[in-house]
């Protein structure tokens, strides 16, 4: 089985790339073949990832190494953290593909869409499995390249404008990360991501340079993680079709930035060095500002998807906040929030997509009595929204609870204020939507009972939000069980802190 362990990390990103290339050459009419390929690719990927998860749990060693030039190598290495993100993106890709097939029923050039769609997911899994700096940046830039055509898929002028801003931000971010990585490479030679950070051997010589590089990395990765000054592209990218904004701007792209931050802090710099360089407060302040700013802006957005976009901006910074507080529980909270927030946010976007598709509702003000007409979608929307606020049964509560106790344990009590304030703000911009959906009196006053028929919308569009909402609920309820993301996060933290 040795050879299988060598090739597996390469096969996982490669599947969706191969599927993407094949789909590119399919003609528009070959709808059934395209659907089959998509679903098959997604299912195989989920199975392989979970196979690797089991393997890594029995600490098998998966690594793919291809020497590129000189001493620089293309390394794909599966460790618990990368598998967490890979599992998240492969599962959600399966769900979103089903949703996208239903959503783009008759729209033009779908081959192009699904081609770039699978490229994008292969880039995300590539980022997850990247083992050293150059591999990470290769997949990072590939993610930008594959998401640009999706953002401008509709081809309207404002889609193009959104694409331009998206490119401007992300290419600039990519350039910053490139300069930082090359500088690091020249200082410390070819560096792999290692469990407890791999810059110890140069830590004392280049104190100042390492600080500057850390700043560059925060800025570069912050663009994708939508940190405050660099988040401009996320709201404007909402013009993309619903599956794009669902998978990409809630899960793939944004999480890639957050995942990059986790990698840099834990596997590149390592805890002691970060503490030593005292850059953590800088990151914490930035995260706090983003959380508060994101929630405040979300309050005043009338367009539903823009409100969700700003809520993503603030939620992702929870992860950054969790990381920046150097305590094991806070880190677990941050990492597990990466998964939970993904599940809940994607449900919200699916529901927003359903409303736009079926009832042509785009604005919050038009959502009166939506619950009566589309009960199931609104139910999943409600559960996900409650989860975002942090109401107990949902996954959101679990991660916020761990974050809170982590802050207390690390003695940073002022952070709890931030947590409480942002939860209140979440409530402030989600609860009115829920009230409008269920209790607002529509003018035609049809007081007939809500018909819980499952045919309110095309099944391909109905089931995905329900599934992801269920997953979020299960992740919340069975947080303790070994199969839950929380357990896996604890495994990661244990290895990071060497407990």
């Amino acid at each position, binding site marked *: 089985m040795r050879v299988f362990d060598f090739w597996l990390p390469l096969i996982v990103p490669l599947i969706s790339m191969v599927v993407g290339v094949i789909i590119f050459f399919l003609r528009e009419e070959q709808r059934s073949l395209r659907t089959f390929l998509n679903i098959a690719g997604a299912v195989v990927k989920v199975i392989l990832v979970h196979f690797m998860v089991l393997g890594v749990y029995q600490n098998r060693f998966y690594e793919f190494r291809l020497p590129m*030039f000189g001493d620089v190598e293309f390394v794909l290495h599966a460790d618990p953290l990368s598998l967490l993100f890979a599992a998240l993106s492969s599962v959600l890709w399966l769900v979103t593909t089903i949703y996208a097939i239903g959503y783009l029923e008759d729209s033009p050039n779908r081959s192009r869409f699904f081609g770039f769609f699978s490229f994008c997911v292969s880039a995300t899994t590539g980022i997850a499995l990247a083992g050293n700096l150059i591999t990470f940046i*290769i997949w990072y*830039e590939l993610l*930008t390249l594959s998401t*640009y055509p999706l953002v401008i898929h509709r081809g309207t*002028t404002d889609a193009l404008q959104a694409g*331009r801003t998206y490119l401007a931000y992300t290419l600039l971010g990519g350039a910053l990360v490139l*300069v930082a990585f*090359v*500088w690091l490479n020249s200082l410390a030679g070819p560096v792999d991501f290692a469990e407890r950070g791999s810059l110890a051997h140069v830590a004392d010589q280049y104190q100042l340079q390492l600080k500057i590089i850390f700043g560059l990395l925060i800025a570069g990765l912050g663009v994708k993680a939508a940190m405050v000054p660099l988040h401009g592209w996320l709201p404007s990218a909402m013009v993309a079709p619903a599956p794009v904004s669902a998978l990409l701007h809630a899960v793939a792209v944004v999480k890639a930035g957050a995942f990059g931050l986790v990698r840099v802090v834990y596997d590149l710099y390592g805890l002691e060095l970060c503490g030593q360089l005292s850059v953590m407060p800088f990151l914490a302040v930035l995260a706090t500002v983003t959380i508060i700013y994101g929630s405040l802006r979300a309050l005043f957005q009338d367009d539903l998807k823009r409100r969700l976009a700003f809520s993503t901006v603030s939620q992702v910074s929870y992860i950054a906040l969790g990381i920046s507080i150097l305590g094991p529980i806070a880190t677990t909270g941050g990492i597990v929030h990466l998964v939970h927030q993904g599940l809940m946010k994607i449900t919200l976007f699916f529901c927003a997509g359903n409303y736009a598709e079926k009832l042509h509702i785009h604005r919050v003000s038009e959502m009166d009595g939506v619950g009566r007409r589309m009960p199931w979608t609104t139910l999943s929307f409600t559960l996900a929204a409650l989860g975002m606020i942090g109401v107990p049964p949902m996954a959101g509560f679990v991660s916020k609870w761990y974050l809170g106790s982590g802050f207390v344990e690390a003695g940073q009590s002022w952070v709890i204020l931030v947590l409480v304030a942002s939860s209140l703000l979440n409530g402030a911009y989600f609860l009115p939507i829920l009230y409008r959906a269920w209790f607002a009196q529509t003018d035609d006053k049809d007081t007939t009972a809500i018909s819980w028929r499952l045919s309110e919308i095309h099944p391909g569009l109905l089931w995905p939000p329900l599934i992801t909402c269920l997953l979020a609920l299960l992740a919340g309820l069975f947080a303790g069980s070994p199969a839950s993301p929380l357990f896996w996060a604890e495994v990661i933290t244990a290895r990071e802190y060497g407990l």
Partner: protein
Amino acid sequence: MTAHLVITVVLVPILASIFTLFCGDMMRRVVCQIAGLTVLGSTCLIAYQTGHSRDVLNIVLSGWEAPLGIRLYLDGLSALLLLTTAIIAVCITFFAEAYFGVKARSGRLTFFWPLWFLVWAALNGLFLSGDVFNLYVTLEIINLAAVAMVALPRTHESLKAALNYLVIAFLGSLSYLFGVAILYTSHGTLDIQLLAELAGIDGPYILAAVLIFIGLMIKTALFPLHFWLPPAHASAPTPVSALLSGLVVTASAYMIIRLGFTVFAPLMHTPLTLLLGVLGGLAVLWGSVHALIQERVKMVVAYSTVAQLGYVFLALPVVVSGSDLAAMVWYGVLYFVICHACAKTAAFLAAGTLINVVKHDRIAQLSGAAQHWPMVFMAFGMAGVNLIGLPPSGGFIGKWLMLQAMINSGQWLLVLILIAGSLLAAGYIFRVLGIALQTSEDSRPPVPAPLQLTLTTMILAVLPLLLGVFSQLPFSLLAVGSPFGALP
């Protein structure tokens, strides 16, 4: 055996050029294809054998040893360049056949083929030649043939552009010749390797270096001396533009690197390279800004040539500080130039396919074109990825090495220019793609692009990406006979 194989690489295109003068239309197409494929085959063999035997090959011509006779010098670099030129040339041959179509079957355009094969032979001769004067003769053949091909459409603008190109190229060759003359008078030999051993900094040596570098800077269209390139592209037929930007400019860039790191190596460690660096930086910025404001696709790609070749000179000042950095620069610049040749040719062929179908390449009227011809713009996008230097492409590896060398030597201005150049390149590539990806209202049934055109464009567009991913083989080939040994 490779000695005879190497000679066939130069001879076969010449014989093809002679035969195409005598045979009728059908025979000519057959001769062209056979000649193209045989040269491709032999270059692959040469590359394999050089990579396998890992030693440099000196082929003595007409039986006389170095100082008296001429020597062909085959090392990893020339083998790799021969291979890339062969691949690009075969693609251009098939592209030109379909592109000119019936026009080239009779009448004066039939003479495009002999000219084209002569240029190919001269390019192979140039990459192989180990003699400084022989480089002059091959460079002259390439330039005169390029001038004739630029003037092929016989329009007023193309003739004026061709004449301007001829005047400037002739001046460049004369300045190069004067440099060679001074080298001969002070060192008594014309062979590159012997000159490299005798190289010592004194009066005539510096003058020779200045003259040779000015001559070659004119030919690589470096910043203040680049005025001939854009008009030449504006009116030349697309296969000629692809040749001009892809191969001719690469040939003189190769000569700069070859002479710079062997004959003028001691000069490389003097602040003289700082001037070249400044000019390179200016070229990058000037070319990119101009490319942003062009309104024709071919002109965008032409100005991008001026910009991209600025990088060759941008990385030179780094050599001053240390020899291990010089190795990084040597590998980075060469890999960048090779990938740039493929990507630039692919971009031009994509523009050519567009012109063949839509009869114009004005960017403003291209909105929605990506829907009708998805493959053409996919190829243009992939070529663009390499021009910008985004990861999956070979250009990225070239830039990574250059960036690393610049950072190690602490030249932060150069880092800034390199990054600015990449972002500007992203600007003009995605400007074209953005407009093409719009959804156009007029749904007039699109004329499908001929398969032969799209196929050749796609092959050349994929090549730099392959060079990016499987970069281990080309680098091991480059290490054969490189003045710095394997990359540290």
